């Protein structure tokens, strides 16, 4: 296998994973993920469905406990943290979930303001104003704030989820398949928002997608995951001449190649 490790930019690494493994029962999902994301960089992980992309960022976020290996955030090893310290670290994060994961018991504005209200203890009136501001950043009017998430279309839900992810102006933002399930135009709107907002906040971004249009728009660097490992990583400019058959098959969306879809085997 043509293995290329992430570049060794140790000093500036915002997120650094070494040999991260995770198995669910007998199913080994991650078999040794090495990944570095530098400050201010936008890293995109590509890979087929079910290859462990979401599991990777959930390990980094501490939502799933990885089995072995090391994950460092700003140089701090997360394995040894207690719940309190973990919550402290999570303040640096914003996360856009694959399915939005909006709180359906709360109106839209309170979803957006959630981190401000509860983690930052911003007073309600002020938090509401800030939420309206953030909604405007993703192109939604203040009247949307009063609606419940169930009343929104898919594209609007994604935008609200995006507004929630950025509301506390996090240092690191995670985007899990931000454009999946959207029409191409809405997908492009979301891509533009991601680029614009991460620039504006000067945030480090780690995204997941299998949408190549999205990759070309938002990535500074790309890492490809296959078989529970990062098998290639490099800058977006290099992706078309990676020389890696897995990457080539993926970016051209070909059914035949080294990656075999397990359609017949169980």
């Amino acid at each position, binding site marked *: 296998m043509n293995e290329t490790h992430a570049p060794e930019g140790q000093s500036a690494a915002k997120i650094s994973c070494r040999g991260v493994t995770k198995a669910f029962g007998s199913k080994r999902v991650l078999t040794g993920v090495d990944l570095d994301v530098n400050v201010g960089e936008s890293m995109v992980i590509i890979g087929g469905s079910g290859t462990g992309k979401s599991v990777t960022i959930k390990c980094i976020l501490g*939502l799933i406990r990885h089995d072995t290996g090391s994950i460092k955030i700003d140089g701090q090893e997360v394995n040894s943290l207690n719940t309190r310290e973990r919550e402290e670290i999570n303040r640096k994060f914003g996360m856009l979930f694959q399915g939005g*994961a909006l*709180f*359906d018991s709360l109106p839209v504005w309170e979803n957006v303001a959630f981190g401000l209200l509860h983690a930052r203890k911003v007073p309600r009136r002020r938090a509401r104003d800030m939420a309206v501001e953030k909604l405007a950043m993703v192109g939604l009017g203040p009247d949307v704030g009063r609606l419940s998430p169930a009343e929104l279309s898919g594209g609007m839900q994604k935008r609200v989820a995006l507004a929630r992810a950025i509301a*506390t102006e996090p240092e690191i933002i995670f985007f899990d398949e931000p454009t999946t399930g959207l029409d191409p135009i809405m997908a492009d709107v979301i891509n533009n928002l991601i680029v614009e907002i991460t620039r504006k906040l000067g945030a480090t971004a780690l995204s997941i997608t299998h949408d190549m249009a999205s990759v070309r728009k938002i990535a500074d660097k790309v890492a490809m995951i296959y078989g529970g490992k990062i098998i290639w990583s490099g800058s977006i400019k290099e992706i078309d001449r990676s020389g890696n058959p897995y990457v080539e098959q993926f970016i051209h969306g070909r059914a035949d190649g080294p990656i075999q879809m397990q359609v017949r085997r169980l």
Partner: protein
Amino acid sequence: MKLDLRLNPLALIGRAFLSSLSSAGRLFFFTVESITHCVRPPFFSRLLLNQIIEIGYYSLPVVGLTGIFAGMVLALQSHTGFSRFAAESAIPNVVALSITRELGPVLAGLMVAGRVGAAMAAEIGTMRVTEQIDALKTLSTNPFKYLIVPRLLAGLITLPFLVLVADIIGIMGGYLVGVYKLDFNATAYLDNTWDFLEPMDVISGLVKAAVFGFLIALMGCYHGFNSKGGAQGVGAATTNAVVSGAILVLVFNYVITEAFFSR
């Protein structure tokens, strides 16, 4: 081979034993973690208030209805029995005792297990499978504090009040049947009720209620929190919450009765 193993009764028993051990362990740690979060700040008092209204206020009709019919039927049935010994004057007291010690807390507990336990499991379970609980964590909010603690405390605080209401309405039900159907003298019925009712009868019922409220909420939260696998998983969690809540109500009813009244 696999089939053999499944049909082997020893293997079946062994597997059931192991899985019940591990779920007992998980429930234990869940309970301990919940309780430690009950006493450590920050507290979400708004959410606690919401839950108290949700559990308490909206359960009033159900609890009132079960109370009044339980009281009425008690009066009727004990009349059948006691009239054979010409001991009708004991009816008011029997009604009051049965309601305050047993039927009030148990019936209210069972109704609340159905209404509230199910709702908690369904809501928290849906939040689990749609990643809303993960979202809470990424927003630096502890799901135990935000979701579990308000519900457990609300159950603990609210159920005694509901049971007090059930007690009063149940005794009133007995009174209505006693006076309007069994031709008791109204003041004599009430005198007979109060004269033999001791504070301990009511207090034991309220202690039961607090324990039931906590257990029902615990079952709803636990099964919801650990649900997985989409709509079906949430459905299973809801069923488990109601069934285990109801069983725990009955088991602890016996345990607490034993603790209070057996010498």
